[in-house]
């Protein structure tokens, strides 16, 4: 079952190539804020700020919009009672690999609407040093779902800017969470944390896993067809496989888009 779903994701990722028109590579960075609740660590929420990086590829034809992005962010989060005496500190690293293939659907007033498919990988590794051998906690979601966007162009600062809002809503997940007590078998020299995690992964859908992502961007044209983009990302996800997880992230990023 897992193999079938992953093959389908790969197929979805590869389709749509061969069309032409606008191609952009984007590079970006930004600041981001994250809060989460993870019952495998604590019964209290954690929050904090971090930095993020972005690498993307976007292709737009008269009929389709394909967007691929690789984003990483790193945080130092604190719990509500964090002090010099009580650590309540967690370091987290997020990795997101995402692809959406949207087909332009229709115009609504000045807005160009597009709908299509979305697939992505979200990995969030949390290090709660105060928890001894339970310190390493992770959420890993491989997702398949749908995406939609609304785009319009308007005049701003004497240039034709583009405003776009895109939402991604996965429907099917391969979800990996640490085993009971966040067990890592340090006393077994042949233990393989990645193999164990993959083997324990579950195919889930809403109820067990949920994620929603919203990307709001404003693209401002520069010389030579390049663009400057200001982007606000928001996402939240929940997992309920024994221990509950809920997390949200707000990120503000600046991108440079280079026309190919």
């Amino acid at each position, binding site marked *: 079952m897992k193999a079938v779903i992953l093959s389908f994701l790969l197929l979805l990722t590869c389709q749509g190539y061969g069309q032409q028109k606008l191609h952009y590579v984007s590079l970006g960075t930004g600041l981001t804020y994250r*809060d989460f*609740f993870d*019952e495998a*660590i*604590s*019964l*209290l*929420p954690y929050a904090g700020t971090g930095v993020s990086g972005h690498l993307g590829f976007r292709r737009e034809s008269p009929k389709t919009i394909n967007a691929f992005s690789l984003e990483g962010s790193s945080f130092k989060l604190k*719990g*509500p*009672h*964090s*002090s010099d*005496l*009580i650590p*309540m500190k967690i370091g987290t690293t997020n990795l997101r690999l995402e692809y959406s293939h949207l087909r332009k659907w229709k115009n609504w007033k*000045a807005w160009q609407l597009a709908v299509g498919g979305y697939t992505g990988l979200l990995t969030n590794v949390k290090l*709660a040093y*105060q*928890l*001894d*051998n*339970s*310190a390493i906690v992770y959420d890993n979601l491989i997702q398949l779902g749908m995406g939609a966007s609304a785009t*319009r162009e*308007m005049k*701003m600062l004497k240039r034709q800017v583009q*405003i776009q*809002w895109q*939402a991604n809503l996965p429907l099917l997940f391969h979800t990996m969470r640490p*085993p*009971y*007590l*966040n*067990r890592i*078998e*340090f*006393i*077994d*020299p*042949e233990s393989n944390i990645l193999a164990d995690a993959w083997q324990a992964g579950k195919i889930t859908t809403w109820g067990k896993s*949920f994620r*929603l992502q*919203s990307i*709001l961007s*404003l693209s401002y044209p520069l010389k030579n067809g390049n663009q400057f983009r200001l982007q*606000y990302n*928001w996402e*939240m996800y*929940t997992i309920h496989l024994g221990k*509950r997880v*809920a*997390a*949200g992230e*707000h990120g503000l990023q600046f991108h440079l888009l280079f026309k190919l």
Partner: protein
Amino acid sequence: MRAFLLFLSLGILVSCERIAFPKAEGENATAVFRVLWNTLDEGYSFFEYKQVNWDSIKTVYEPRIYDGMPDQELFSVCSQMLNELKDGHVNLRSGFDISYYPYHLDRPANMNKELLDHTYWRGFSITGPLLHTVIDSVGYVYYGSFQRKISEAQLDVVINRFANHPGIKGVIIDVRSNEGGDPINGQRILERVPHSGRKLLYYTKYKNGPGHNDFTQPQPSYYDEKGGDPKWPGKLVILTNRKCYSACNFFVAASKQYPLITRIGDKTGGGGGQPNGFELPNGWSINFSGSITYMPDGTIIEHGVEPDIHIDMDPMDVLNNKDTIIETALDYIRS
């Protein structure tokens, strides 16, 4: 601009992930006690083995908890409850104190560092965490903490020193009062035992659910002899005392599968569960044993590993600046 503001509003509107967060646990004393008790109830691995009735322990300590009680008093009551488990791997960390079960005080110390300094450690070398010397044709290594990493290169230095010493008869590896750390350091030492091949060391079953008997299937652990690298020369002796705990206890248990190694001293202190952790609603954290390890003959190592030659320090020897356990090991290797 109106459209941009509209979209910005839309972006903010969906930014309410906190509605998905479960209600946070209260942070008063009764909530802290409840979470502490439940965490142990669902995670601690030795209730059955130690014949501990956790419910009855709750009835003893819960009435002493009241909201508004000072943190120090709450810590004290919780620590007393945890010490009922008689487990050095069960610790409550409050920031101002760490609870600790003194697992080693029921036995003599069986180690005197002043004596070692004056009599046996003169002219020693230090390679990383390993203090080493040669005592009358017997190599001697003291390793004080498994928290200090041993590299393969450091082991090469120490082993080559002994292997190249004329007339070397064997090596003493002294891990007395080593309270543990990372088991991989023990693995590195044992992989240098010659002609050992692949060794089945022990089995471990891990907690995998909230019931007191919810465990994974027993999982075997193996060490493989390190090919090509220098090996310990001659007879091997490991010195132990009651303060040899946790990763040190695993090391001594694993060494039982090596016929070339003899253990001399006192029974180790135990610590046969892998410590797991959780955070309490007031920010304190707790760690506790979450697994059970037993040797291939079925012996659970939580309460320590017996030596092959059991001997305590003789006070008369100490007065004469002699370490009874080292002297016994030297005699054994020379014999």
